[in-house]
């Protein structure tokens, strides 16, 4: 794997601010819900399917919205495996940032609850948002695994984008 392309892809992903920030929020919500779902017997499958669908749609959305950039990069000699790292870069950025946000929010809320007498609002927030550390790490692993089929589909889509597409859109 070309790490330079991967790091540049993560930086590149940051520039698509609207899409990336929207999906960071969605992924943070997803991590909280999947963590809770995995801990609730009977709900696991429902949340796993939801996470799978979302991860797949997101990977395809990246390939679609970057289609012109992908075609240009192919014109200037990027191979399909380099292009794949663009998709991976954005997914890594969004998943890790969402994970860190949930982790940070959980730590902050637990700290506040320990420091102050937990009022009704703090208790409600704690019930809603705080995720147990083990559940959180398990969820991260689960979400990373669920991304793989989505990334595969997105890669197939990106591979099919001909370099000529960039020229036809002139």
């Amino acid at each position: 794997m070309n790490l330079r392309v991967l790091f540049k892809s993560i930086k590149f992903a940051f520039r698509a601010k609207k899409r990336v920030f929207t999906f960071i929020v969605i992924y943070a919500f997803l991590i909280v819900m999947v963590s809770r779902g995995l801990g609730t017997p009977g709900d696991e499958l429902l949340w796993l399917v939801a996470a799978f669908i979302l991860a797949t749609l997101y990977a395809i959305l990246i390939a679609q919205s970057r289609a012109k950039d992908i075609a240009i990069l192919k014109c200037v000699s990027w191979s399909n495996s380099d292009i794949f790292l663009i998709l991976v870069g954005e997914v890594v950025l969004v998943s890790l940032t969402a994970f860190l946000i949930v982790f940070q929010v959980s730590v902050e809320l637990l700290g506040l609850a320990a420091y102050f007498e937990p009022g009704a609002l703090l208790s409600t927030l704690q019930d809603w948002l705080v995720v147990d550390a083990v559940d959180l790490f398990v969820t991260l692993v689960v979400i990373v695994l669920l991304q793989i089929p989505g990334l595969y589909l997105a890669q197939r889509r990106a591979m099919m984008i001909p370099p000529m597409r960039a020229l036809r859109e002139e």
Partner: protein
Amino acid sequence: MVKPIIQLEEVNKEFGKGKKTVAALKDINLEIQQGEFVAVVGPSGCGKSTLLHVMAGLEQPTGGRVLLDAVDVTLISERDLPKVRAQKIGFVFQAFLLIEDLTAYENIESVLWPNEELTKETQEKMTLEVLRDVDMLERRDHFPRQMSGGEQQRVAIARALVNKPPILFCDEPTGNLDSKIGDSIMKDISTLAREKNMTVVLVTHNEDLTKYAKRILRMKDGAIR
């Protein structure tokens, strides 16, 4: 005798199927030598852009052979074509085709990122060198939307030259620019090509630009006249 750097043998290109088939290129035979500046001129739809795309391996011909530096690009798999493009070809397009989310510097350097043989420092050095060549060093951190058409085309030229390819393909490089800026862009291409002993194939419908070329090829209805 020196081998031509670009060689086309009986190249045909058809679009469509059955009765709707349109022949874009008809039995093209062509040899271009290293360091030559060739202009391909002709009216819209005569097949000159298709000829360029076929030469560059962006489109496969329906028949015939295309050799770049003695390598038959019609026989190379889709997987290996990027390598050949990286080593042998630079492109300048009419619509600049810069990536909107990358700065001028990054647009140029992006060509080198996949090359693991080049260190980060070498990539930086090569990028800065071509930025200086096209006089765009001060605009290195600007995004395409913050640059004029002429500046964007200069960045596109720098991107085409950064990996020091022996061949430069230019498809209507001044088509989106006014005549004064277009002229200065053509002077840049001509000077840089001469300095670096590059082969240039320029496709244009603008007869004025042929003054920069050593050889002029005229196309009509998919054939070179």
